[in-house]
């Protein structure tokens, strides 16, 4: 019999990549010592390129010095996965959750992140599917609509998924996205035949898909200031 599982969710708006990284580090430590329950951050980043632990910077096709002129930053991170781009109009979820508490390994966790995005896409009539072996992520045909890069430390997750609502896809031309050549990047805007609601609505739907996929029974909404302060947000 499963006991009730709570997740705290914070809608953060646009957050600088380094600020989000520092916040995640604090949340990981707090989650590890059980000071907080499983936590989910929903946000967007300003234009940012990131590399994973393998530091595959050969997949950056322009000199690093050019990025500043484009208004973009570059970060080397500890997450899995290859190079990617984050920017406005791309919905990001960073779950800080204990995989041990729910008995999931890395593979199943990532599958559920893929299913979260596939489910969201289906709400708009877009048939997305997981990547083939070695191509983790979410695809519409040969076009990538969602990316995943995760870090697991002492069974606690950080980083997460990025789903393209309507980002400027030109930014992806300066990288070999996820190290996979000859495959396009796409967005919900491009793939959906119907008009889309506001991004806030879609981001909330993404949160809802995540909560359902991972079997949480209740959500506590936190605002930015009350994260890690022990204050209670609104409980639904």
């Amino acid at each position, binding site marked *: 019999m499963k006991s009730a599982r709570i997740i705290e969710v914070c809608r953060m708006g646009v957050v600088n990549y380094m600020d989000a990284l520092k916040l995640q580090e604090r949340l990981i430590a707090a989650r590890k010592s059980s000071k907080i329950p499983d936590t989910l951050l929903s946000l967007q980043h300003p234009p940012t390129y990131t590399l994973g632990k393998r530091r595959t910077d050969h997949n950056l096709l322009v000199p690093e010095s050019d990025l500043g002129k484009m208004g973009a930053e570059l970060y080397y991170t500890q997450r899995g996965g290859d190079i990617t781009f984050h920017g406005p109009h791309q919905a990001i979820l960073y779950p800080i959750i204990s995989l041990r508490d729910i008995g999931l390994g890395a593979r199943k*966790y990532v599958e559920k992140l893929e299913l979260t995005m596939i489910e969201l896409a289906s709400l708009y009539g877009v048939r997305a599917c997981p990547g083939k072996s070695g191509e983790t992520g979410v695809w519409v045909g040969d076009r990538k609509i969602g990316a995943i890069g995760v870090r697991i430390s002492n069974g606690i997750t950080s980083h997460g998924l990025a789903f393209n609502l309507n980002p400027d896809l030109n930014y992806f031309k300066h990288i070999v996205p996820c190290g996979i050549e000859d495959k396009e990047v796409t967005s919900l805007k491009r793939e959906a035949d119907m008009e889309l609601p506001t991004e806030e609505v879609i981001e909330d739907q993404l949160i809802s898909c995540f909560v359902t996929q991972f079997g949480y029974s209740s959500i506590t909404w936190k605002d930015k200031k009350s994260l890690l302060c022990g204050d209670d947000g609104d409980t639904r």
Partner: protein
Amino acid sequence: MALRVWASSTANALRLSSKASLSPAFSLHRCFSSVLDGLKYAPSHEWVKHEGPVATVGITDHAQDHLGEVVFVDLPEPGGSVSKGGSFGAVESVKATSDINCPVSGEIVEVNTKLTETPGLVNSSPYEDGWMIKVKPSDPSELGSLMGPKEYTKFCEEEDAAH
């Protein structure tokens, strides 16, 4: 030892999963991951084999199965030290980087450099060719608090049943 290696290689050659171990006393749990006698196990799914002055460390069959295909293994240089429960490296699979923790404290005396070229050894041979580091334990009594095969098998079953 030689006999067990033989069985494992033959199993690989016949494309059977390397799950048939010659020490199968507690190896058949729900997902058929193998658990070997003679090793000690940490709750974070690393194993330790203590032979004389050296302890060899790797991740278990259960761990590699739950990770998926390992594409990258990040290991330290020999000469460094590790503490019990502390991270000494990471593996990458399915776009996830997972820390690996050392079950004992000590000095790292050897590192499995084959894993740089062939990270998949962690999947195909988690208890043998996929070994990760060798440590000179600073406090061998730490091994006493680790799980034996039977305990670890039960631990895995309970963890898998939790979701």
